[in-house]
C-alpha cells in the first residue's frame, strides 16, 4: 500500500533522494533546506552574491570613520615597512663607498637612524591598526549576530517549521564562525598584502621600468589562476556551508532526543548516518583545500619562475651596463616581498571564500520576508474587549489541500468557546490564526473589529496568549519561566499565578522552590508539571484572549480539577478558545463548536448539544462510558 503511494507521489519531486540520504525522507516543501533567496540557477547565485556583498557593506557602514583611519594607518605602516629594503639598497650603494673612500660614516648613520624611526613608526601603526581593525571586526560580528537573531525572531512559525531549529543554530554558530575566522586574522593580512603588492609594483617601476615589466609578466598568469580559484572554490565552499548545516542539524536533534536514541539502541544507526554526513562535509572541504593547494603551489611557482627570469634579464642588463648591481639586489629582495604576501593571500583565500559563502547564507536569511509581516501603519488596540471575528476566512498550506474553506465565526467578548473535532478538522488552525502564527489565505480575522494584520506585535501579544501542548521551558529557574509571561512581574505576582493554577505546592516542594533551575540540580519536571508552569505563565500574562490548545492533556485528575476550578475564575472575564479532546475540559465552555473538515457542524452551549442528539452528544456519551 505504502509503495503505491510512494510511486504515485514521488514523481513531482525532480530532485532524486540520494540513496544514502533516504532516511531523511521527502520534505513537504522543496524549500525545506534553504531560504527562498537560495536557488540553484545562475541569476539567483549572482543575486545572492550581490546580497552577500551588500550585507558586508551595510555592516561596515557604521565604521566608515574608523575604516578611514585604519586605511591611513595601513598606508603609513606599509610605507614604513617598505622602507627596509630601500634603506638596504641605499646603505649598500651609497653608504659603503664613502666609508671605504674617506671614512665618512654620515650616510650610514643617517640610514641607521631612519631605519630606527621607520621601525618605531611601523610598530606603533601596526599596534594601532591591529587594535582598531580587531575592534571593527568584533563590532561587525556583534552587529551581525544581533541582526540575524532579530531576523529569526521576526520570521514566522511557518518558516521555522520548515527550516528547523538545527539549521537556525547552524546559521547562528557555524556561519558566523566562518566569518569570525576571517576577522580574527585573515582580513588584516589580505588588505596589507594587496597594499604591499601595489606599492612594490610602483617601486619596481621606478627603479628600473624594463626589469619591472619582466616582473609584471607574471600578472596575467596570476590573475588567471586566482580567477580560476575564486570561481571554483566559491561553489565548493557554498556546498560546505550546507553540508556542515546538515551535520549540525543531525547533531542537535540527536542530542535533543537522546533519551529516545538510547532507549531504542539507535546509537549505531545514528553513527552511520552521522558519519555519512560528516564524511560528506569532509570530502567537500578536502576538495576546497586541494583547490587552494593548487593555487598556493601555482603562486609559488609563478613567483619563483619570475624571480629566475628577472635575475637572468637583470644580470644581462648589469653585464651590459644598463643597470647597477645594487638595483638588481634590491629587485630580488622586493620580488620576495612581492610574492610572499601572495603566498599568504593564498593561505587565507580559502578562509575568505568560506566567509563569503557564509555571508551569502546569512544574507539569504536576512532577505527572507516574514510570511506574517508587521503592519506598516499599525492600528492601536487600547483596552481590547476581546471580540473575535472570522470573516470569510480561508486557509490552506497548499492550494490543493484547503484546511479551512470559507469560515465565518463571531466570538463575543468574554465567551469561552470549545473546539471539538477529529484530527485535521481545523481546530489548531483556528488557534494559530487567532494568535497570528499564520495569516489567513483569504478573508479577515479581527479582534474588536481590527484586522490582526493591522495590529502591532506587542499590542497583539498583550491581548492574546496561547498555551499549547508543547511546554517548552527555558534554561533558568522555575520563577523565571513563569515570569516569561510578564518579564517585570514581582516575586509575589509569580507566586500568586502559581497558586491560582495549583502549581504552588509542587514548586515549593522542589529543592530550591521557585529558584530551582529547571535543567540542573534535580529540577527535572514531569510533563504534567511543565504544563502547570506553562499555565501559570499564561495566567501571569493576563491576556484578554486566551487560547488553550490541548493544554491539559498531561495533567492528572487532581491537577486538572484544580486547573479547571482556576479556569472558571480566570476565564470569567476573558475570551477563550479551548481545544481539548477531554470533554471534562470542554465542559467549562459557554459554547461548543464541533468542526469537521474546516466547517462548523454543530454550535451551541454544551448542555443543549448533549440533549440535541448530534455528534457532540455521541462524543459525550462515549466519554461518559470511558469513565469506568
Amino acid at each position, binding site marked *: 500500500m505504502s509503495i503505491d503511494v510512494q510511486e504515485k507521489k514521488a514523481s513531482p519531486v525532480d530532485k532524486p533522494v540520494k540513496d544514502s540520504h533516504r532516511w*531523511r525522507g521527502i520534505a513537504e516543501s522543496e524549500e525545506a533546506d534553504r531560504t527562498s533567496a537560495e536557488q540553484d540557477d545562475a541569476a539567483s547565485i549572482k543575486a545572492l552574491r550581490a546580497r552577500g556583498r551588500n550585507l558586508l557593506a551595510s555592516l561596515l557602514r557604521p565604521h566608515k570613520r574608523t575604516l578611514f583611519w585604519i586605511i591611513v594607518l595601513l598606508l603609513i605602516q606599509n610605507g614604513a615597512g617598505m622602507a627596509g629594503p630601500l634603506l638596504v639598497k641605499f646603505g*649598500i650603494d651609497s653608504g659603503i663607498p664613502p666609508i671605504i673612500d674617506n671614512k665618512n660614516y654620515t650616510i650610514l648613520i643617517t640610514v641607521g637612524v631612519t631605519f630606527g624611526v621607520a621601525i618605531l613608526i611601523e*610598530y606603533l601603526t601596526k599596534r594601532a591598526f591591529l587594535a582598531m581593525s580587531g575592534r571593527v571586526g568584533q563590532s561587525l560580528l556583534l552587529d551581525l549576530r544581533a541582526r540575524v*537573531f532579530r531576523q529569526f525572531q521576526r520570521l514566522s512559525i511557518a518558516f521555522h517549521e520548515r527550516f528547523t531549529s538545527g539549521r537556525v543554530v547552524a546559521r547562528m554558530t557555524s556561519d558566523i564562525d566562518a566569518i569570525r575566522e576571517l576577522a580574527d586574522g585573515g582580513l588584516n593580512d589580505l588588505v596589507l598584502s594587496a597594499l604591499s603588492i601595489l606599492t612594490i609594483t610602483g617601486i619596481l617601476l621606478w627603479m628600473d621600468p624594463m626589469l619591472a615589466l619582466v616582473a609584471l609578466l607574471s600578472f596575467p598568469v596570476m590573475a588567471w589562476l586566482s580567477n580560476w580559484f575564486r570561481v571554483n572554490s566559491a561553489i565548493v565552499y557554498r556546498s560546505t556551508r550546507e553540508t556542515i548545516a546538515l551535520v549540525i542539524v543531525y547533531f542537535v536533534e540527536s542530542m535533543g532526543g537522546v533519551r529516545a536514541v538510547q532507549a531504542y*539502541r539507535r546509537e549505531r544507526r545514528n553513527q552511520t548516518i*552521522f558519519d555519512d554526513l*560528516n564524511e560528506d562535509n569532509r570530502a567537500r572541504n578536502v576538495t576546497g583545500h586541494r583547490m587552494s593547494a593548487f593555487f598556493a603551489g601555482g603562486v609559488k611557482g609563478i613567483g*619563483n619562475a619570475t624571480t629566475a627570469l628577472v635575475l637572468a634579464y637583470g644580470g644581462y642588463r648589469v653585464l651590459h651596463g644598463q643597470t647597477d648591481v645594487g638595483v638588481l639586489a634590491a629587485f*630580488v629582495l622586493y620580488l620576495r616581498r612581492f610574492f610572499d604576501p601572495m603566498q599568504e593571500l593564498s593561505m587565507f583565500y580559502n578562509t575568505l571564500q568560506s566567509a563569503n559563502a557564509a555571508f551569502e547564507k546569512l544574507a539569504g536569511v536576512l532577505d527572507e520576508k516574514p510570511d506574517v509581516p508587521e503592519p506598516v501603519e499599525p492600528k492601536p488596540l487600547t483596552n481590547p474587549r476581546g471580540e473575535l471575528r472570522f470573516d470569510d476566512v480561508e486557509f490552506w498550506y497548499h492550494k490543493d489541500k484547503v484546511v479551512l474553506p470559507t469560515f465565518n465565526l463571531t466570538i463575543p467578548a468574554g465567551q469561552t468557546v470549545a473546539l471539538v473535532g477529529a484530527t485535521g478538522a481545523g481546530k489548531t488552525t483556528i488557534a494559530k490564526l487567532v494568535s497570528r502564527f499564520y495569516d489567513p489565505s483569504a478573508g479577515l480575522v479581527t479582534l474588536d473589529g481590527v484586522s490582526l494584520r493591522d495590529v502591532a506585535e506587542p499590542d497583539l501579544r498583550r491581548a492574546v496568549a496561547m498555551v499549547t501542548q508543547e511546554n517548552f521551558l527555558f534554561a533558568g529557574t522555575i520563577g523565571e519561566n513563569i515570569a516569561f509571561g510578564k518579564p517585570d512581574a514581582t516575586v509575589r505576582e509569580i507566586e500568586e499565578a502559581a497558586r491560582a493554577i495549583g502549581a504552588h505546592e509542587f514548586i515549593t516542594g522542589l529543592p530550591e522552590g521557585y529558584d530551582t533551575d529547571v535543567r540542573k540540580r534535580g529540577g527535572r519536571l514531569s510533563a504534567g508539571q511543565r504544563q502547570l508552569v506553562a499555565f501559570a505563565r499564561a495566567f501571569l500574562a493576563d491576556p484578554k484572549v486566551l487560547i488553550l490548545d490541548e493544554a491539559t492533556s498531561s495533567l492528572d485528575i487532581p491537577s486538572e480539577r484544580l486547573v479547571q476550578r482556576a479556569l472558571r475564575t480566570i476565564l470569567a472575564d476573558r475570551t477563550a478558545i479551548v481545544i481539548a479532546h477531554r470533554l471534562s475540559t470542554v465542559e467549562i465552555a459557554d459554547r461548543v463548536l464541533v468542526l469537521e473538515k474546516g466547517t462548523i457542524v454543530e454550535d451551541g452551549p454544551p448542555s443543549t448539544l448533549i440533549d440535541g442528539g448530534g455528534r457532540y452528544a455521541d462524543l459525550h456519551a462515549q466519554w461518559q462510558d470511558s469513565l469506568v
Partner: protein
Amino acid sequence: MIAMLALAVVASVFSLVIPRVIQAVIDGPVVEGDTSGLWLLTAIIGALGLGEAFLVWLRRYIQAKVALGVEADLRRDIYRHVQRLHAGFHDRFQTGQLLSRATGDLGRIRRFAAWGMIFLVINIFTYLAVIAQLVQIYWPLGLVVAASAVPLFFLSRNFARGYITASRAEQDQQGEVANLAEETAQGIRVIKAFGRARHVTEKFDGGSAKLYDISINKVRMLSRSWAMFDAIPNLVLAAVLIGGALAVANDKMTIGELVAFVTLQLMLVWPIEALGWIIANGNEAMTAADRVYDVLDTEPAIVDRPGARDLPRAEAKGHLRFEGVRFAYDGTDKTVLDGLDLDVRPGETLAVAGVTGCGKTTMLSLAPRLYDVTAGRVLLDGHDVRDLTLESLRLNVATAFEDPTLFSMSVRENLTLGRQEATEADIEEALRVAQADFVYDLPWGLDTRIGEQGLSLSGGQRQRLALARAVIVKPAVLILDDPLSALDVHTEELVERALASVLAGTTALVAVHRPSTVALADRVALLEDGRIVAVGTHSELLESTPAYRAVLSAESDSVGAAA
C-alpha cells in the same frame, strides 16, 4: 603527518638554497661578465623554484586530507561518545555547548594541525638553517641575529600566558551564545505566543555583548604582542645593515655576501612575525582540545558491567521486579523513589498511578537503564538489569515516552528507530495497533519527512507514532508513559482495543493519569512518597484506597467538572 613535515622541510631547504644561488649569480657571472654562466645559474634557480612550488602543492594536497581528517574523526568520536553518555550528563550539558565543541573548537584544532604545527616546525627549521648559514657567511653578524631569540622567547612566554586564559573564556562564551541561539530556536513557538521576542533578544544581546568584551580583550593582547613580533626582526635587520656595511668597508665581507646575508635574513622576518600567530593559534587549539576532552573524558555512568551477559530476546520472559529501589537525581539529596518494591509478572499489564510529579516517569526510566538506581535493584527475569548488556536489555525493554520525540526524518525511519529490519508488514501492524494509519495519507506516505521539519503533526498523531515505534520492537517488556494522553476518547478506545492483542503476550508497565487508560491494565499500583503503597485491580483500589480514589476516581472528576 610525517610526510607532510618532511615535505615542508625539503621545500624550505629549496627556498634556503635559492638565495645562495642568487648570491652566486651576482658574485660570479654578473661581476665577472660570464653570460653563459648567468644562463646556467638562472636556469638552476628556475628549476629549484618550480621544484619548491611542486613540493608546496604536494604538502598542502596531503595536508588537506590529514587536517580535515583529524577534524572529521574527532567530530565522529565526540558524537559517538556523547551518544553513550548517560541521561544525567545530558540533563546538565546544553546542546549549544556540545555543538560548539563539535564545530568551532574542532575547527581550531584543525587549523593548528594544518597550519600552526607545520609552520612551527618549518619556522624553527628555517630559523636554525638560516642562522647556520649566516654564521658561516660572517659569524659576528650571524651571532647578532641569533641573539634575537632571547627577547623573542620572553615575549612569546608572556603572550602565551595571558592569551590562554582569554582564549578559553572566549570559547566558553561562544558555547553560551550557541546555547542561547539553540534555546530560542527550540522555544520559538512559546516566544511568539507570548510576544517575548524583545525579552529573549535582550538576553541574547547580553550573551553576545559579553562575547564581544572577551574578544576585544583578546584583540588588545594580540595587537600589543604581534606588533612587537614584527618589530624585532626589523631591528635586527637594521643592526645587520649597519654592521654589514662596516664589515664590507673593512673588507671582512664582499658586497655579494652582504646581499646574500640580508636576503637570508629577510627570510627570517616572516617566520618571526608568524610566531605571534602560531602561538595564538596553538593556544586556541590547546584550550579547544581541553574543552573537547572535558566531554570525551567524561565516563559514561551507564555502561556494561564487566561480565555482563546477553539476554536473547527469545529467552526473555519479561518478569520485571523492583526491589527496594531508591533513586535521587545527581547532585540532589531529595529522594524521588524511596524503597520501592514491585513485581510485574510475565505477560501482565500493570498500570502505575500517582499524582503529577510523584516519580512515575523516573521509575519507568530505570527499567531500560536510562538512569541507574541509587540503591536497591531492578530485575529482569531474575537478572539485575545492570548485569545485562545494555544492547540486550534495551532490545527487551522498549519505551514510548510521554513526550513523543520525532526526528526530522522519514516516517519509516522514525518508526523503525528500535528495529531497523522491521518489514513492511511489521510496520503496517504497528501502525494499525497505534491507530496511526494516517501516515499512509501523507504526501509521500512512509517516505514523508516528519519531525520538526515538514508536516507538523498534531500531538495525538505524534503520540500514536511514538506508540507504534515501541510496539514495532516487539519487546518482552513494553513501557508506556501515559501513552494515550493526547488522544480523544474515540481514538483512545480504538487504540486500547488493538493494543490489547499486543499486550496479551507482553509484559507492560504503564504510567496512567486517566481511568480510561487504566482499562488496559490487569492490575494497578499506586505510587506515593516514593513507594508502591497499594496494588490491586482498579475497582479493588477504588474501594479500598482513598488516595487512589483522589488520583483516579472518575466520579470526583465529573464532580469537579460539574462544580
